[in-house]
């Protein structure tokens, strides 16, 4: 983080989702926009407002992560952490990765 810069988290998306980020490889989200306890769930709630077509590819209409979508913090899958309750801190990068599935 640069001193004085707003604290942010970054969501990195695969090429197949860049149609929903304006062609950008990711989306930066101000940590302050995620409430007092920034979490993966709060981040996705925020994306539902700012990037609804992206968010609904990550979660279904019951706000559950889609079965073949993985979100990684570093090398950790959020399903192995606290799922959508996983806390976020400034500078965190959330990587969206499609599961290895399908034929």
């Amino acid at each position: 983080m640069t001193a004085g810069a707003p604290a942010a988290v970054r969501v990195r998306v695969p090429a197949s989702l860049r149609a929903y980020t304006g062609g950008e490889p990711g989306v930066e989200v101000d940590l302050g926009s995620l409430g007092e306890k920034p979490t993966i769930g709060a981040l996705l709630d925020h994306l539902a407002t700012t990037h609804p077509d992206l968010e609904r590819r990550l979660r279904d209409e019951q706000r559950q992560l889609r079965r073949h979508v993985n979100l990684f913090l570093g090398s950790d899958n959020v399903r192995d952490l606290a799922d959508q309750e996983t806390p976020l801190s400034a500078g965190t990068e959330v990587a969206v990765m499609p599961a290895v599935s399908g034929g």
Partner: protein
Amino acid sequence: MTTLLMIGTRKGLFLARSDDRATWSVDGPHFAMNAVYAATIDARPAASGGSVRLLAGADSEHWGPSVFRSDDLGASWQETEGGAIRFPAETGAALVRTWQLVPAGADQPGVVWAGVEPGALFRSDDGGESFSLVEGLWEHPHRERWMPGGGGLCLHTVVPHATDPDRMLVGVSAAGVYRSDDGGKSWEASNTGIDAWRMPDQRPEFGQCVHKFAGHPDRADQLFLQNHGGVYRSDDFGATWSAIGGGLPADFGFPLAVHPHRAGTAYVYPLVKDEHRMPPDDRCRIYCTTDAGESWEPLADGLPQEHAYVSVLRDALCTDDADPAGVYFGTRSGEVFASANEGASWTSIVRHLPDVLVVRAAELP
């Protein structure tokens, strides 16, 4: 006159076009790596000066399902806002797949019905731009006891009555046929006469594994139905059903289509039941009745007649609206056959596609 054939596959949508129904050009895939189970050609807007609208239900194994539309015959596609079909939060359900998109009659120009998984019916009043859940069926007391078939708990068939917009039937696997006589407000099981397989009671009120049914608008109360085992006819819009599969080499199968102009004429694709599920004698043959199921005739000219192990899924058989009628079917091995003479002879119009899930055809105005 150009004929358009929509071919939905497990890995995208292909569009075939022909000016003579003999030579075809094919483009695609649209929505690559999306399974396209639902496709429809809605010609109703053209009657009032609009464009023919194509609708497709596409679902990505990773990124979920959406409904797409095209008002320029497939040259470009637009995704509907929010994907168009979403369960209300209070249902606790999430859309898995759109199985069926069916325009209502010409007297309801904006109405499109969608059958989905998990078993539910949605209605659009704006030509497929947005849909709302038909709560009367969702709240039916049977629904909690519906059991999914091999394809999931899918509402795969929607048949609006040809002359009475308040009446309609839907098919759910493996729950059976349900009927509404009040525009979808209330529903009742409508399976009288249809056998249930692998159930202790062979004739339960519901639980039948209905695969497909269809009717002809000139004989609005007559329907033909392909069950998991058995082919049936109803002459009272689904109130009762009678077996008519005795003249077939096998009465198991998935798809069923009716002739666009002649009531009483229907097409099926028999498979040997139940653990075999390949065509009888390893010969690829469509069977046709022209007398409402009293007799059946094999249609095989041009189709593979040796070592043919192909199967055809429930929506992968259709007719167009031309005269003489075109008949089309696509196989799970990615080949599409077309007949321009009502099934008398067939040609292969495209091969090596992914598994064909749905075909829909129409002459363009």
